[in-house]
């Protein structure tokens, strides 16, 4: 076993210092050390997107990032997006539009969608489909996921306009 290294991760605004083996995957550190079990492990081969988190302003598949690479990074997981009492507009829209069935893909879907709407606040349907192409869902057939993302974009945009 190689030596453990000290790493610092800022996750959902909280700074964590921990000792990790460099080969530990970010998804394992998040789930097993920090108890953030929102990001899921679906395929562990960078295909399904269930493990998606935002790292340094980019959507990444945390099953394909070493903890060591993430040292120093700011990370957002689904736990950082809303609470049961104050849902994020995307969470609200997924509920409203039946954007989930079993819910396994949902944390990755919503975390990816949140970053997509930061990059492109007013996407077309085609842009949503293209921007969400790294997230697989076995249940919904995607239609309602796309509807939910478009609805959340409208909600966020009108809230922004109202604030201005």
């Amino acid at each position, binding site marked *: 076993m190689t030596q453990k290294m000290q790493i610092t991760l800022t996750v959902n605004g909280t700074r964590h210092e921990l000792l990790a083996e460099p080969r530990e995957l970010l998804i394992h550190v998040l789930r097993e050390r920090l108890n953030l079990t929102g990001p899921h492990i679906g395929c562990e081969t960078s295909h399904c997107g269930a493990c998606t988190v935002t790292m340094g302003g980019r959507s990444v598949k945390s099953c394909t990032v070493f903890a060591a*690479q993430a040292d120093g990074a700011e990370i957002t997981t689904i736990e950082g997006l809303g609470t049961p009492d104050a849902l994020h507009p995307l969470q609200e829209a997924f509920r409203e539009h039946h954007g989930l069935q079993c819910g396994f893909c949902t944390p990755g879907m919503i975390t990816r969608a949140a970053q997509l709407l930061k990059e492109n606040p007013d996407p077309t349907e085609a842009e949503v489909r*293209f921007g969400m192409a790294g997230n697989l869902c076995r249940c919904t057939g995607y239609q309602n996921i796309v509807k939910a993302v478009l609805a959340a974009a409208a909600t966020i945009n009108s809230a922004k306009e109202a604030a201005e």
Partner: protein
Amino acid sequence: MIPAAFAYHRPGDLPAALALLQQYGDEARVIAGGHSLIPMMKLRMAEVPHLIDLQAIESLRGIRIEGRQITLGAMVTQQDLIAHQGLGQSAPILREAAIQIADPQVRAMGTVGGNVANGDPGNDMPGLMQCLGAIFHVTGPEGPRTLPARGFYESAYMTARAESEILTAVSFEVPTGGQAYEKQKRKIGDYATAAAAVIVRREGTTCTAASIAMTNLSDVPVWSEAAGAALVGTPCDDAATRNAIAAMLADIDPAGDNRGPVEFKRHTAGIILARAIARAWSRA
């Protein structure tokens, strides 16, 4: 899927990274976006006792368009390529190819340098760079040198880059003419069953120059000089396209695998090339 243990290094500049490569020799490998290397390490098909992360080296970043010269730092991601306005205008084929690579999350990590240095025949950027006539810039213990993309690939995962060298940038001239990147894949995020990069120049109704490169149809990317030559002096009509396809088919050497048998791949290669030529010509 946990890879074998390794020591992690994050040098802050190129000399420090080169020194680490020297120090650990065969035991060391650089990691860029990690989206080819980490899957290999997880499968234990690559064992890397010393992993040298390039993420903190500023000089490997950046997209520069100076006059007619475009330079992409090795650590430029596919997402960066897609987002760059200037590049979208001066070399639209890059964006067209990049949006057909993997998916958004993979493109957020995967780099130009990793894609061209990797040597996997499935990677899309090597063929694209051969089509563009790009130059790869590498630096090793003896200093920097340049290698043409068209001479870089020796066999699967074997390239002209020495193990002690780091690829720092890719550069090429702003392409003129119509450009198209066409790719057949089984699903989003898949490597190509066949892909074609085509640039054609036109004067009036005549093609004056053409460059054609094919991906995942041999153990290296295939820049088919003969296929390009078959278009020059023609109006890029059906007959010329058929000749270009015949020339291309003589240059590729696909292997049968889970993307299909050899006959299917050759058939697909022809269709993809015809589409790419037609689209490039319509834009020329």
